[in-house]
């Protein structure tokens, strides 16, 4: 590793559009708000969940176990907030704050030891869109065929699915509701456009019946 070099600041796929997203805020009971949360650390983890390595990796990440139920999400308590998202029966995404990817990768590789697994830094592969507010679910329902009703989905759950024509990792954060949409960088402008379009109607009063 070269010693301290000032690298250019990472440029997220939507950094040019931050003002457009902010300008689309809708307040009040029909409120909805869209933001990009740029440059989160993201590390793909692949291993056999029944292997001893899985327990070691979970422990190293500060978790009692990796989430093994489909759509499970676990957040580790610790100085650095790291969350593990279930993506498949032997696949997880570890999400952390910006710049945390090398540390995550090192921790996981160390815990993996000679156990078989794969660790890939994919931080720049996807960006995060946060959509929140009372009408956030209604916006998503215009393009997502998943059942997002509280009886079927909620905080602490994630799913890989399609939103409009883009593949996303959809994660519910709270009951506001707030959702995080992890989307590939190349799709981010399209998805932001689609969301802004879908949000427009909430600026107007509800259509009378």
């Amino acid at each position, binding site marked *: 590793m070269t010693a301290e070099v000032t690298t250019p600041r990472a440029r997220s796929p939507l950094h040019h559009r931050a003002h457009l997203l902010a300008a689309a805020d809708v307040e009040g009971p029909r409120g909805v708000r869209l933001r990009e949360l740029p440059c989160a650390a993201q590390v793909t983890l692949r291993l056999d969940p029944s292997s001893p390595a899985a327990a070691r990796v979970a422990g190293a990440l500060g978790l009692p176990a990796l989430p093994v139920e489909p759509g499970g999400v676990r957040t580790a308590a610790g100085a650095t907030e790291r969350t593990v998202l279930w993506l498949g*029966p032997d696949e997880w995404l570890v999400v952390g704050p910006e710049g945390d990817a090398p540390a995550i990768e090192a921790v996981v590789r160390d815990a993996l030891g000679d156990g078989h697994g794969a660790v890939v830094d994919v931080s720049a592969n996807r960006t995060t869109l946060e959509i929140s507010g009372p009408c956030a679910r209604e916006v998503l329902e215009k393009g997502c065929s998943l059942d997002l009703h509280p009886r079927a989905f909620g905080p602490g759950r994630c799913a*890989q*699915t399609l939103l409009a024509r883009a593949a996303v990792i959809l994660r519910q954060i709270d009951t506001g509701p707030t959702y995080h949409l992890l989307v590939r960088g190349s799709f981010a402008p399209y998805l932001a456009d689609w969301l802004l379009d879908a949000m427009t109607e909430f600026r107007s009063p509800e259509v009378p019946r």
Partner: protein
Amino acid sequence: MLLIPCPWCGDRDETEFGYGGQAHVPYPEAPETLTDAEWAEYLFVRDNPEGPFTEQWVHTAGCRRWFTLVRDTTCNDILAVHRTGTTNPVHP
């Protein structure tokens, strides 16, 4: 639009999946020992039943797992779903 029960993620719209054709057509263990006719059978010949058909799907937009399901081709009823490599039906 089928509603396909991914054995991992549960019910999802067909648009999230890729189709892999008839299931249980394994790659021959020793292709070089096969006759041309046997090899052509592997490459090109598949069943086309009226009724239950075991086929492979992949949850492309979800967990990216391949799995098999039994679908009645007359009505699209999905009769069973299996994780790859297992024989116990899954009821997600």
